[in-house]
C-alpha cells in the first residue's frame, strides 16, 4: 500500500521534530514491486514486495550522519534520528555541506497511472502465458520477466521544503532462443501507463529476432557502418552519456567536455547538428520527476541543442563554488532529431554494406575522457548488403567513444525516437531514443556467445 501525501507528511514531520541537529533532510519512500519470471517455457518465480523506508540525514556543526529504518512507529523513527545524530557527531566536517532548501514550488508530473498500480497477479500470468504459448508455437525456448512497480516518495527539510510524488511502471522483457542454442532474440518495453503498453509487441519481436538470427555467419571484427535500433541506442547512451555532462568533472579535466587550460566545451558544437539531448520532466510519454538534485524543482533542460553543448550539470555545491546556478535536472533522457527522421526500413534500404544491431550488453566505461565504452552485441546482429538484410552474423565486442559516435560527420540518418529502457537496468528506467545510422562503429573482437 503506497503512502498517501498526508501519511508521508506526517512521517516527515515526526522525523524532523525528533532532531535537534542544525539541519536535516528526510526521505520517505513506499514501494510495491510485483513480478513474474519465466524460463525454459515455464513459470519460475513470482513475488510481491511492499516496503516503506524512512531516511534521515542530519548535520551537526557541519558534520553529517544518516540512518534509515523501515518501521514507522514513533519509537523506531526516534531511534533512527538518534543513530543519524550519533554518526554525525563522530564524522568529519562535510566540506560540501550547503543548507537544505526552504519551501519550493513544484509543477507535478503525470507519471502515475492507477491502472498500472492495480495490475493483478492474474494479469501478469495471462501475459506470460501468452508468451509461453507463442514460444511453443514458434518452437523456440522463452525466458522473460514481467514486473510492475508503484512508488510514493516524499522529501522534507528542516528549512521548510516538502515534496511528494507517485510513479508507476510496467515492464516486460523477453528472450527467445532456438532449441539448438544457435540463435537468440530479445525485446524490452515499459510504460508508466498499462493502458498504453503493448506486451504483444515484446513477444512477437523477441521471437522474430530469434528466428531471423538462425545460422549466423562469422565476420571479422573491424570498423563497420551500423544501424542501431532504439534499444541499442538506449543501452549505449542512457546512463553513460548523461552522467558525463557533470560540470565538476569537466572543470577538473576529467570528462569528455573538458577543454585545455581548465576550460570546458560548453557552447561548442560537439555533436551532429541535428541532435538534441534534453530532459523534460513533463514529457507525456516519458515523464520524469518534479524534483531534481537536492529537491530543486525540475525544469526543462537542454544539454545539447542542435549539436551544441548548451548546459553542463552543476551540483548545488559546485555551482556555489564556481559562482554558477545549480542545474535543475536532468530527470529523464530524451534524444531526438531536430530535423526530418528516417524509418528503420529506409536506413536499411540506404545502406551499401554494414551491420544492423539489435542491442548491446555488459557495457562498461573504459575511458571517461572520451566516453569510450566497451561491451558486446547480443540477441541479433545482421549484415546489410545493397539495401537488404543479407544474413545474421555472430556477436562482436566493441570499444567505441560515444562522443565520436554522435559527432558531426558520423551520423548518417536519425530515426523517430521511441520510448525504450536500458536492458541492463531491466526496464526500470526509460527515455526516448532514436534508431541511428552511423558511418563507423568500432568492433574490436568477435564473440561466439549466443
Amino acid at each position, binding site marked *: 500500500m503506497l503512502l498517501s501525501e498526508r501519511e508521508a507528511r506526517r512521517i516527515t514531520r515526526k522525523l524532523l521534530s525528533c532532531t535537534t541537529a542544525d539541519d536535516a533532510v528526510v526521505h520517505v519512500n513506499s514501494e510495491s*514491486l510485483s*513480478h513474474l*519470471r519465466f*524460463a*525454459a517455457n515455464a513459470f*519460475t*518465480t513470482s*513475488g510481491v*514486495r511492499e*516496503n516503506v523506508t524512512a531516511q534521515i540525514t542530519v548535520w551537526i556543526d557541519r558534520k553529517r550522519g544518516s540512518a534509515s529504518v523501515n518501521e514507522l512507529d514513533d519509537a523506531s523513527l526516534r531511534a533512527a534520528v538518534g543513530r543519524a545524530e550519533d554518526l554525525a557527531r563522530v564524522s568529519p566536517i562535510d566540506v560540501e555541506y550547503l543548507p537544505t532548501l526552504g519551501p519550493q514550488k513544484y509543477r507535478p508530473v503525470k507519471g502515475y497511472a492507477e491502472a498500472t498500480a492495480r495490475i493483478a497477479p492474474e494479469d501478469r500470468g495471462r501475459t506470460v502465458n501468452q508468451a509461453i504459448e507463442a514460444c511453443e508455437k514458434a518452437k523456440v*525456448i522463452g*525466458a*522473460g*520477466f514481467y*514486473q510492475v512497480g508503484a512508488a510514493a516518495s516524499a522529501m522534507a527539510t528542516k528549512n521548510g521544503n516538502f515534496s511528494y510524488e507517485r510513479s508507476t511502471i510496467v515492464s516486460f*522483457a*523477453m*528472450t527467445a*532462443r532456438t532449441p539448438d*542454442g544457435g540463435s*537468440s532474440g*530479445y525485446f524490452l518495453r515499459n510504460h508508466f501507463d498499462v493502458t498504453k503498453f503493448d506486451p504483444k509487441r515484446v513477444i512477437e519481436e523477441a521471437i522474430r529476432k530469434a528466428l531471423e538470427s538462425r545460422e549466423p555467419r562469422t565476420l571479422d571484427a573491424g570498423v563497420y557502418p551500423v544501424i542501431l535500433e532504439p534499444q541499442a541506442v538506449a543501452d549505449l547512451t542512457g546512463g553513460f552519456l548523461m552522467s558525463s555532462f557533470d560540470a565538476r568533472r569537466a572543470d577538473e579535466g576529467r570528462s569528455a567536455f573538458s577543454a585545455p587550460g581548465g576550460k570546458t566545451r560548453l557552447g561548442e558544437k560537439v555533436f551532429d547538428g541535428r541532435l538534441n539531448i534534453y530532459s523534460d520532466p513533463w514529457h507525456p510519454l516519458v515523464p520524469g520527476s518534479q524534483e531534481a538534485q537536492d529537491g530543486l524543482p525540475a525544469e526543462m533542460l537542454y544539454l545539447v541543442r542542435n549539436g551544441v553543448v548548451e548546459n553542463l550539470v552543476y551540483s548545488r555545491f559546485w555551482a556555489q563554488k564556481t559562482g554558477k546556478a545549480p542545474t535543475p535536472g536532468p530527470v529523464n533522457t530524451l534524444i531526438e532529431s531536430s530535423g526530418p527522421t528516417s524509418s528503420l526500413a529506409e536506413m536499411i534500404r540506404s545502406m551499401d554494406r554494414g551491420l544492423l544491431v539489435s542491442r548491446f*550488453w*555488459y*557495457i*562498461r*566505461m*573504459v*575511458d571517461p*575522457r*572520451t566516453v*569510450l565504452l*566497451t*561491451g*558486446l552485441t*547480443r540477441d541479433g546482429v545482421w549484415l546489410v548488403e545493397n539495401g537488404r538484410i543479407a544474413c545474421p552474423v555472430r*556477436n562482436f*565486442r566493441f*570499444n*567505441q*567513444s560515444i562522443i*565520436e559516435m554522435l559527432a558531426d560527420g558520423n551520423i548518417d540518418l536519425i530515426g523517430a525516437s521511441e520510448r525504450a529502457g536500458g536492458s541492463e537496468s*531491466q526496464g526500470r528506467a526509460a527515455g526516448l531514443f532514436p534508431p541511428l545510422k552511423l558511418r563507423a562503429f*568500432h568492433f*574490436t*573482437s*568477435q*564473440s*561466439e*556467445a*549466443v
Partner: protein
Amino acid sequence: MTYVREHDWLQEATQAGQEAVAKLKARPVEPGKYDLVLHPSHLWLTIHESVGHPTELDRALWWEANYAGTSFITPDKTGKLQFGSKIVNFFADRTQPSGLATVAYDDEGVPAQRWDIVKDGIFVDWQTTRDLAPLIGRKQSYGCLHADSWGSVPFPRMPNISLQPGKEPLTLDDLVRDVSKGILIYGNGSFSIDQQRYNFQFGGQTFWEIRDGKVTGMLRDVAYQSRTTDFWNACDGLGGPDTYRLGGAFNDGKGEPTQSNAVSHGCPVARFREINVLNTNARRA
C-alpha cells in the same frame, strides 16, 4: 574486523597518491600480444567473471537466459572440457575463512562445503542447489541457494571460488623473470564479458611493463581481451601459497529483480602467455 584493524590504510593512501601522479607520466601501451603477470588484486575479478559465472548450473540450463545470460559450458561437458592448463585448479568453498560468501548453511539448510570446479585443467563440477542437483544426476546440493533480503526470492548464487596456488613456492619476481615482453597488472578497472562468458575485456589500476625479466616502468591505457578457455589454457605459471590473496565484491548482480551477492575469490599471482592487449585511448587509436 581483523582486516579493518590490521590493514595499513595510510600506506595504501600514500601508494595511491604516488601511483596517480606516476600515471601522468606513464607510457601509452603499444597494442599487441603480451605475456601477462596478474596480481591477486586484479585476478580475482577475472576469476569471478570467467570461472564463477559460467559454472552456475542455472545459467547452463537457460534459467537466466533473459538477463545475466547462459553459459558456454553445458552439462555434457562435465569431466571433459579442457577449461585451463594442467596447473589450473579451481575450488568452490563456502567454508573459506574470511570469504564473503562463507556461511554455515545456505537458505535451504544445506551445510556449507568445499568442492572442485576445475581439476588439473578439466572442468569437473557445478554450483548447485537442491532444485538443480538432480537435473545433472546428483543426489545432494552443494548449498548455493541464497536470497539477498527478506523481500527477495532465494535462487542460485555463487560461493567463494578460488584458484589454488602452485605447489612450488614461486614469487611474483620468479614469474616476472621468465617474461621477455609482458605487463604486470594490479587492481581492478573496467570489466566486461559476454552473456555466455566466452569473450572478456579487463582493465586494471596500474600496469607495469616487463622487459627481459624485469619491471621497467609504468604503462597506461591497457586492457586485455581474451576468450575464457584460451586464457586459462595460456596459464603457465602460478605463485606459491605465500602469494595467495582473497579479493571480492559485495555487489555481484544477478536475477530478476536483480539481487546483490557478496563473494570472494582467492588466487596466487599468475602468468598467462601471449594475451591480446589493446590501447584504450580513443584519441590515440
